[in-house]
């Protein structure tokens, strides 16, 4: 059963058994650790909080509301014509994370801006929702934690935030109602 590989070195049945037993043991241990790690991932009831429906009709022009989706604040702002124009006019070269305003709103509904209201830096909630709150230099939102500024399209204009405020998946279920948490293709499940 022994076989010579290099001078003075042989592979014995014992080497083979040690190696295979060790490998099986290592894989088994890894599989045993996984349930412990996975138990810390979001549980089924947390995952079940999938969609939130919002009626937009009571929101006046220039007003913003905050709703909750999956435990996160969602900013919905009914933008004024001036705010839309400001967002569309901004040259791409001035943006830290370039993205045209048209990519961040639904076609023909560009007065409605829907954003996850969490600063992309370290997760604080920016101010700018209430009419009298600090909206920063770009009329959007201001993050009190580390000073990031967002414009009227929710795009980052001054760091440390690395990216724009995230637009969550949502669809217009009719003219004035939206459902947050589903993409266009899976409307009205």
């Amino acid at each position: 059963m022994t076989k010579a590989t290099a001078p003075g070195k042989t592979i014995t049945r014992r080497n083979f058994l040690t190696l295979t037993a060790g490998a099986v043991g290592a894989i088994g241990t890894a599989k045993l650790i996984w349930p412990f790690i996975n138990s810390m991932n979001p549980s089924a009831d947390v995952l079940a909080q999938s969609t939130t429906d919002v009626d937009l009709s009571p929101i006046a022009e220039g007003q913003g509301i905050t709703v909750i989706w999956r435990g996160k604040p969602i900013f919905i702002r009914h933008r004024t014509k001036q705010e839309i124009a400001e967002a569309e006019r901004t040259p791409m070269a001035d943006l830290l994370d370039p993205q045209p305003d048209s990519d961040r709103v639904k076609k023909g509904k560009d007065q409605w801006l829907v954003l996850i209201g969490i600063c992309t830096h370290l997760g604080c909630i920016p101010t700018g929702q209430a009419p009298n709150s600090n909206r920063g230099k770009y009329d959007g939102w201001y993050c009190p934690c580390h000073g990031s500024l967002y414009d009227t399209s929710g795009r980052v204009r001054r760091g440390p935030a690395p990216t724009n405020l995230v637009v969550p998946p949502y669809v217009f279920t009719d003219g004035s109602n939206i459902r947050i948490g589903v993409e266009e293709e899976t409307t009205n499940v």
Partner: protein
Amino acid sequence: MSSKVTRISNWIDYRLPIISMMKHELNEYPTPKNLNYWWNFGSLAGIVLMVMIISGIFLAMHYDPNTKNAFDSVEHIMRDVNGGWFLRYLHMNGASMFFIVVYIHIFRGMYYGSYKYPRELLWILGVVILLLMMATAFMGYVLPWGQMSFWGATVITNLFSAFPFGDSIVEWLWGGYSVDNPTLNRFFALHYLFPFLIVGVVFLHLIALHQHGSNNPLGIDRKEPRDSIPFHPYYTVKDLFGLGIFAFIWAFFIFFAPNFFGEPDNYIEADPLVTPPHIVPEWYFLPFYAILRSIPHKVAGVLAMVGAIFVLFFLPWLDTCKVRSAKFRPIYKKLFWLFVVNCFVLGFVGAHSPDEVFYYLGGMSNQELGQITTILYFAFFIIAVPLLGMFEKTTPLPASISEPVNRGGDRRKKSRQEAAA
């Protein structure tokens, strides 16, 4: 009577040699005779750790780690539980005391070169203890479920989103899409566990310490028997005296200024929809928080903050100077104190908003002050310390520990001998 006690202790020791081990580590353990009061802080740290564990266990008997009840259960401890206010203020101020003691202990090690050969692993174990302490303190601060608890937890856990697969890591840490009940539950479980891990590493720290014994203010090795004295009773008494003064200061905060180190915002219950206008961590994290904020790039900021602690792991190899004590290193001594001042300025930066402008500093913004002090912090370790190791001219070392200590006595003895002759 005493012979009976001796017989019993001998019976035990023959089977379980704890008595002879204690005797060996305390009575016979030789300690340099010239240790000053800066050497008190190691034993103080051990005592604070014990007090924190005991007070924590008793607090846990009344605390409820559920987002609906956590805030109220802390108020229940404060108002209803017999002596609950004392236990909580002891524990809460104990965290600050622990960091004061440990930071002094670390600065002591840096000043007297205690991290150098052959105590590199002793130093590294100390840095591991510091990291475990930071994690424990952070999770403990979340438990009262106030506004600062919640938003501190949100900001710090989000640091992990800077890394690859960051979003999945952060959701795994939270057990959800935001800091919520699963997060509070696991933080409580881990806050209870980590102090015992610290105890384990402290034991390794002590084993490493007793291998080569304490460093001393002269930074030279013990050479002759008269350089050493037994730890007990000499340093047990000296440490107890230091403990008396320290306990006095701790008690002052517990009884007269219990919320001195805290943030008023943490007496407002956590609200996931409102970020306080100014989030600040506890004072002991401020210098590191300042480093994080000074760098206007997410990943680089996180790496700099982590690096500010990890650089300590490499200190034994960054410093190539063979002389340990700053007493004999004139330039290092000055730079060391500038480094200490710089750490305080970083703490100041961390406590203020990034947009603040200081007119008495020629209109410098807090952001710029933070950037300058961050560069100075790293420059100390990465530029100054290695260069000094190469070029600094050290002053002559004494021949032994006893030489400078006994110089007067030796001279008197000599003159007496001469007079006799």
